[in-house]
């Protein structure tokens, strides 16, 4: 595939993941605000949504979208604001993507397991 073809797909992936994030962040914040109205402890949260497959899937998608969106933006910032070689910027963005994905999914899984115990 041509360089423009790849760059265009990466760019489009960032737009699409932004749309997912817009919904996910709204649901997440809204959910939190609703949930903590009367004060809430960690134990209560785990009790309510830990082990819940729907919550885990929702946050799994959230993490996935973040892992696509943020590294592409980071790469753009690096290319515009630093003198980094584009290959190095690609590498940094790639490592960041893997880190967000692994750490995020681990957190989602850990929370799910806490509730399932």
């Amino acid at each position, binding site marked *: 595939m041509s360089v423009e073809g790849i760059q265009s797909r990466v*760019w*489009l992936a960032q737009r699409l993941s932004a749309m997912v994030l817009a919904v996910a962040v709204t649901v997440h914040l809204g959910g939190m605000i609703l949930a903590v109205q009367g004060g809430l402890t960690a134990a209560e949260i785990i009790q309510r949504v830990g082990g819940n497959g729907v919550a885990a899937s929702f946050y799994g998608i959230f993490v996935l979208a973040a892992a696509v969106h943020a590294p592409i933006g980071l790469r753009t910032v690096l290319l515009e604001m630093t003198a980094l070689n584009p290959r190095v910027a690609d590498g940094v963005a790639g490592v960041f993507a893997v880190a967000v994905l692994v750490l995020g999914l681990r957190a989602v899984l850990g929370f799910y397991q806490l509730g399932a115990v």
Partner: protein
Amino acid sequence: MEDMLAVSIWRGGEDGEFVSYDVPRLENQTVLDVVTYVQRKLDPGLSYRFACRVGMCGSCAMTVNGRARWTCRTHVSRVADDGRLEIAPLRNLPVVKDLSVDMVDFFDKWAKAGGAFSPTKSRADDFAAIPPGDAKRRQANAGIECIGCAVCYTSCDVVTWKPGYLGPAALNRAWTLVNDTRDGLGRARLRLVAGDDGCLGCHSQQGCQEHCPKSLSPTAAIAGLKRAVVVAVLKGKL
């Protein structure tokens, strides 16, 4: 109205400096009139460009009190309330001398963006009939009055950050050709402007259209190119 203007003009190359001149204030005086006065009466060594003096050729753009403008159509009364004028060469382009910048990069990028029309017919064919109300014709119309002054290019931060970025004027030109139904370059034309250095590099912050003396909107043209890229990607044609 004060009798004299305190004018400081950039002299020298990239590492030059501002030099002060006193210029008589006149009614209906343009910034280009001021620069011309300095060259004719005070300092014949001053280099600057102009040609038409009526806003058609696009050669007289300079940075006036910190903002890029076409100087032949900019009245002193509009930009120098306190009788002070600071006139510098355009940003984002190498300074040749004084107020003249090297425009090679700017026009090379037009060529890179596929700025040349690619005909599908010859002079032996009849005129192409395109109704004025045609949707594509209207899109093209919105951008064709560009005079190539580089005011947008000099006002775009992405150009500053990414020297390879094609810039608003070249992309605006490309969009007029994408909408020219007589043009034969098709998808290949889109490919020329699709990458990170093309329309995808634009942050849509509209510095270009804020400054364009012809009130064009390169931002809208670039948004059109982005939409065309999305369609091409989804169709697997890029």
